[in-house]
């Protein structure tokens, strides 16, 4: 199993797209921090990359890689290897390789330029989002036999979680503004991993505003130690649930 995992990691790391992805992230973050003398503005630009670009690349790359490895997976299945370890190896390989790209591209400059605690939150957010979208991509792969449909589904999921979801929540909020919807709003945002990542970074850079009345509930729910912990758990659920769901489907699938 270890052999398969290392093989996949090496295979992905050699992939030109991943190298290009690393370089692009690197270029983005270095240019942001060296051009912008205002660090908190730099973090903001970076936040948009982490919330939009990183999930998009992760989900599409992982998905296409899965489809391209269909024959390889079939070959492995015919060997005396457990299906769960094949699936585990694929997941680990993808997650490790893409996270490595993220850490080299964004992690290093972030650690160099911004406050260590904020940097840690930003990096953790990026790593969790990458892993979540790899897990989602594998679910899409197993749900759709057709490659076009699978990629379509993963892009749709990204579009929904990254862009549309907030619009819907905003719409919901305006419609029901007269009612006590605080708890529902918090729950709705906590469901979406992209929102959770954004809120954690927000707690670092807009801390003064969040100490006020507007942020009181916010700070209480997300800013405390239990808040951080809960957000982390919610994001882990987003990794674990799609992964085990896809694993179950893979185990029983007639390839």
């Amino acid at each position, binding site marked *: 199993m270890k052999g398969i995992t290392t093989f996949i990691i090496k295979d992905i790391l050699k992939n030109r797209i991943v190298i290009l992805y690393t370089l692009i992230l690197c270029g983005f973050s270095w240019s942001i921090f060296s051009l912008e003398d*205002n660090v*908190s*503005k730099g973090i*903001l630009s970076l*936040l*948009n990359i982490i*919330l*939009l670009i990183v999930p998009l690349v992760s989900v599409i790359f992982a998905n296409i890689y899965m489809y391209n490895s269909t024959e390889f997976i079939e070959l492995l299945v015919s060997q005396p290897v457990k299906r769960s370890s094949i699936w585990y190896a694929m997941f680990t390989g993808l997650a490790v390789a893409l996270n490595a790209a993220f850490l080299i591209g964004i992690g290093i400059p972030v650690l160099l330029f911004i406050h260590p605690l904020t940097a840690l939150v930003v990096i953790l957010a990026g790593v969790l989002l990458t892993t979540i979208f790899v897990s989602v991509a594998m679910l899409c792969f197993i749900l759709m036999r057709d490659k076009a449909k699978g990629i379509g589904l993963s892009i749709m999921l990204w579009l929904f979680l*990254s*862009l549309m979801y*907030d*619009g819907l*929540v*905003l719409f919901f*909020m305006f419609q029901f*503004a007269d009612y006590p*919807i*605080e708890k529902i*709003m*918090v729950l709705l*945002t906590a469901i979406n991993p992209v*929102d959770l990542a*954004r*809120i954690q970074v*927000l707690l670092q850079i*807009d*801390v*003064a*505003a*969040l*100490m*006020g*009345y*507007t*942020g*009181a*509930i*916010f700070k209480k729910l997300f800013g405390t130690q239990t808040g951080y912990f809960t957000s982390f758990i919610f994001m882990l659920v987003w990794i674990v649930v799609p992964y085990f769901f896809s694993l179950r489907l893979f185990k029983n699938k007639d390839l």
Partner: protein
Amino acid sequence: MKDLTYHFLVLFFVLTHTVVLAKNIHVGPGKENRSIRAALLLAKDGDTIFVYHSLYKEGNIIINKKITMIGVDYPVIDGDKKFEVVSIKSDNVIFRGFQVQNSGYGSLNDLGGIKVYDAGNIIIENNILENNFFSIYINFGKNILIKNNKIRAYGIEEQQIGNGIHCWKSDSLQIIGNHIQGHRDGIYFEFVTHSIIWRNVSRFNIRYGLHFMFSNDDAYINNVFDGNGAGVAVMYTKKVTMYNNTFKNSTGDASYGILLKEISDAEIVGNRFLSNTSALFLEGANRIMIKKNVFSNNGWGLKIQANCMENVISQNNFIGNTFDVSTNGSLVLNKFDKNYWDKYEGYDLDKDMYGDIPFHPLNVYSFIIENNPIAMLLFRSFMVTLLEKTEKLIPSITPEDFRDDHPLLKAYSL
């Protein structure tokens, strides 16, 4: 001629006579007096009392003569948590170099560590005030210098503790270089006029670092207000000048760097507002010049209510604030000009240092948050950013003429 010289000589001796008579009285272990009270009984106008290091628990010490009290090596005067410690009830008193501690607490009487009653020409200097109810209390004072005192209290609840330097109905005070910590209000002024507050540090007080009301013609220069419960509040006052002060770390629900309420004709110049929830809050404030200040890393830089008129906000730096400006109405009677806004995204083709398109400092989302606080949850999400950008280009909710016509492209070096 000889007669005249003789008369002059007589006059000279008569004049110097009183000076010569002014004597020094020493108090302390092994000295001629063991208690300050005894020394005060002996003293006449113009005498100097030297008090040496020891612990003096003598109840309420009343100074009702024109004398100089000098503490050698910080003698400790203790109020035993029952009494007002030192009461100054005479003009021309100098009180220097003491440690005054543990004044009584009263819910009816404002007991002070050092309290001045209806007196003038007083110097209170280089004292340490520890754990008093009110530390320095000036009641109907005139020409008083309060300098380099270290004031510290350990208040927990607002009702249980008084103010650090409390001044009531006074005139021509100089409050210079004091450190105040842990009181209710660091410096409190009510009906105090023509006074200067210079180089004080007021930190971690329960309510306000500085609080004044009905105190016209005062100047606040080079003070630091840090981490006070609700920042600084100034109300119902005319002609105040605030230069080069630092207001920082006032974070919380109703905390402000400065809260201005019903203030007119003031000058707020060269101050630094750092990491406050709301840096500067203006309500009913008129004709105020806000110039060359730095607003950095605050939640809200400027909260300017619609009932403020003819204020000029110019040449300030707004850097790294979550929201630079917010307001509660659509009426704009104030002028924003030539400020630096780090959120400005314009250009300068004619190279005159000012951006060619005006900047709209109002963020539409701060409007939304004002009404739906929970909307903060979605702040900086893609949809909200989109909403903000559209509003910036085509203002529909925010007032169109709320703008800076000459936004600077590079920050002022302030």
